[in-house]
């Protein structure tokens, strides 16, 4: 059997891809991977829905008025935020598994730029984060308990979703920092602590003075205040905004620092 010589590729007609290799095929495959991960789905979608069903429908307080809506709506927003930050943290922390598997190194043998890779990870995290918000809000609609205007449903939902991007940066930072395949087991625990500090599970005014003093500095405090602001009608304080921006800067700066170290050629 004779094999025809393969035509010589013309070196000059070969081009590097645009956008550093970013494309929708990869985004689709990454989302599919996330959906295959049962653990991630349970933690970021099923768990917040269950929490809402337990805490958001309690007849003792659910119908009490809060600003432009009721307590049930307030708790729904908290649970959507909790699910969304779990989702985006998981999405970002996937880099840890991929580095451990040598996939990041394999990708360096392709045209995919490190920046495009990080953007794909962020977007994948956001898709899962959207899933969490939609799941909790849909549960809210079905139960009929949360009460606020249609406009507020949309505005608070978008605030939670976009705000969860802060934790995609957190996930990336930790994913590059911690060289373990089980990084999410550590991070889920940290997120529970952050959620208490942010007042997502128990209102902060029911906690001790010391706890409240510390809570102001924790990473979910400002974000939790901001996403509830449209509902409560209280304008965000400087503390809230500074808290969010400071943690965003820390997580993004940390992710960039570790990312640079990881992709530096030795």
């Amino acid at each position, binding site marked *: 059997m004779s094999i025809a010589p*393969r035509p010589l*590729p013309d070196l000059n007609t070969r081009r590097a891809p645009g956008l550093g290799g970013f494309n929708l095929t990869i985004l689709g495959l990454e989302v599919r991977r996330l959906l295959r991960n049962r653990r991630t789905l349970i933690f970021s979608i099923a768990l917040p829905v269950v929490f809402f069903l337990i805490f958001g429908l309690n007849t003792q307080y659910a119908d009490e008025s809060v600003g432009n809506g009721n307590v049930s709506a307030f708790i729904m927003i908290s649970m959507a935020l909790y699910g969304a930050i779990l989702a985006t943290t998981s999405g970002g922390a996937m880099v840890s598994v991929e580095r451990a598997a040598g996939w990041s190194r*394999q990708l360096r043998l392709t045209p995919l730029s490190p920046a495009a890779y990080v953007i794909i990870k962020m977007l994948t995290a956001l898709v899962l984060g959207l899933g969490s918000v939609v799941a909790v809000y849909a549960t809210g609609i079905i139960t009929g308990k949360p009460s606020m205007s249609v406009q507020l449903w949309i505005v608070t939902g978008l605030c939670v979703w976009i705000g969860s991007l802060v934790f995609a940066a957190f996930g990336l930072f930790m994913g590059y920092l911690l060289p373990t395949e089980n990084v999410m087991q550590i991070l889920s625990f940290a997120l529970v602590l952050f959620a208490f500090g942010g007042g997502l599970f128990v209102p902060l005014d029911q906690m001790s003075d010391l706890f409240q003093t510390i809570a102001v500095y924790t990473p979910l405090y400002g974000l939790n205040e901001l996403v509830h602001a449209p509902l409560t009608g209280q304008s965000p304080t400087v503390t809230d905004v500074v808290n969010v921006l400071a943690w965003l800067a820390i997580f993004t700066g940390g992710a960039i620092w570790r990312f640079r170290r990881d992709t530096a050629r030795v």
Partner: protein
Amino acid sequence: MTVTNALPGRGSQAGDVAPRAVELRGVHKNFGSVQAVNGIDLSISSGEIVAFLGPNGAGKTSTIDVILGLSRPNSGDVSVLGMSPHQAIARGLVSAVLQTGGLLKDLTVAETAQYTASLFTHSRPVTEVLDRAGITAIADRKVGKCSGGEQQRLRFAMALLSDPELLILDEPTTGMDVEGRRSFWSAIRQDAERGRTVLFATHYLEEADDYADRIILVRHGKIVADGTAAQIKAMAAGRTVRATLPDADETALAGITGFDHVEVNGDTVLVHTGQSDAVARYLLTTTAAHDLEITARGLEDAFIALTSDDATANQQGASA
């Protein structure tokens, strides 16, 4: 190798304009006080199949990492197809099958190939490369459920996607059984017949002997020999020339230049030599010798002689 392409330089010698597939000049790479690559000069032309042979820790992988742009040499120049490794990779002109890792367990075989294919502007169809790597039947299997050999074939399929001009394989058959190795190499060999340049690192002597046109022997980060398998065998151990020569005078023969060691057994003369051509010419033209045979010592002898620590440094340079 026959060439039907009109473009200049494919498999041709120095002096034309086509860039070399690989060009290394004075490459040094150290990790702390460990000198992994200690001054390597290397030039590989298009279409060559080259084995990088050496014991573990000889600097094979470090050199390959430099060629692939995965690491930066401390000094020296690297050029791949006339451009930097990074540019060659971005254009899909170079691809590699690395030793281990580099796969996601939760993707299927076909999805892994689709992922990689989507990154190149110029890509072969996924079905075609899976077929060429012989893994069409397991396309829908999760990577985590594939055997080591199947994963290696997937890495090979991924390396074929961009239809690269240069394919680099770093110890590609480590951990495979004999049958797996044979069928893996038959897939590589079939592919290389189409004219691709292939550089592979190995510590299996038979692989280098069976599949490479040219063998580069490395030791302590240096090239200690470079040539065809036959040249390398001859370099380290010389060859044995055997002839039938009645009434041979052992002492007289041993005095001739190039006759390193002479043995006479009845009518048979055995000469160990580093200059087998000269010995054969002498025997055939100036004596009555007939039925002459020249045999090389094994590559294993050469390998041990050239890569052991007491090997002399001046054996370098039997360039192809």
